[in-house]
């Protein structure tokens, strides 16, 4: 008997977007990110009995996911790492003069700090989207994050365009209020 309720049937709806966003900012590949999220859910199923309910379900899943991401990098490092070093060496002979220039920081590049902040920002946005009613969240994500056009969404969800805009308006109002405190 487990005193803490865990419901894997709801995992995808509740957490998949959050976990996916967390992963993709770290691995930069949709396919790999999905695999890692999936592995995380599978691992979660296996260790469900160990869940003590000290943390929220999501925090617990994130802690599993973190380990999966580290494992992923270990794996690709052991396969690919050596080959990459060799490739760099082969370029050295002719382009010796370019070496320093290539090392100079690119001012237009995002700095590490920026990236960190943006990762946090992305999670904060998902947090706020998670507080919306399901329908609003769905429409907002399709329109804003997936970039589907109005007609596609209307056909898929069987709503009218003016319906869609009302939903979008409500979603944006709630989101702005949710994000205002910390990010505006």
């Amino acid at each position, binding site marked *: 008997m487990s005193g803490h309720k865990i419901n*894997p*049937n709801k*995992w*995808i709806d509740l957490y*998949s*977007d959050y976990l*996916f*966003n967390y992963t*993709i*900012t770290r691995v930069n590949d949709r396919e790999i990110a*999905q695999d890692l*999220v*999936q592995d995380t*859910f*599978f691992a979660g*199923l*296996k260790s469900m009995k160990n869940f003590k309910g000290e943390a929220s379900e999501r925090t617990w899943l994130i802690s599993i996911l973190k380990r999966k991401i580290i494992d992923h990098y270990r794996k690709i490092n052991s396969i690919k790492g050596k080959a990459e070093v060799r490739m760099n060496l082969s370029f050295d002979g002719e382009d010796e003069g370019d070496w320093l220039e290539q090392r100079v920081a690119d001012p237009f590049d995002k700095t590490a700090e920026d990236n960190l902040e*943006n*990762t946090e*920002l*992305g999670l904060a*946005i*998902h947090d706020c989207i998670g507080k919306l009613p399901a329908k609003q969240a769905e429409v907002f*994500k399709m*329109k*804003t*994050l*997936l970039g589907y056009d*109005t007609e596609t969404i209307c056909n*898929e969800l069987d709503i009218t365009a003016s319906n869609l*805009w009302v939903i*979008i*308006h409500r979603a*944006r*109002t709630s*989101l*702005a209020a949710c*994000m*205002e405190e910390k*990010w*505006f």
Partner: protein
Amino acid sequence: MGKGFKMLISCDKATHTCDKTQYDEASLWEKIKLNIHLLICKACRKYSSNNGKLTKLIHKSDVECLNATEKERLKVNLNNELKNNQ
């Protein structure tokens, strides 16, 4: 200026145009009318400013989510795994 040439729009219309602007779907004439409205309406100015900030944040964060097919696949796989574990 005749009556058909309406410069002033309601707050409802203004917020709607403002929402459309966030997705680049408002026409030039709609945007002009929105801006005239913003000159005279403080509430819509506030809404418009917040709305713009939200758009900027979302753009900046590169936030992503799964599409319906991807989610469905995750669900099917998780369900299979659930059955295997029972």
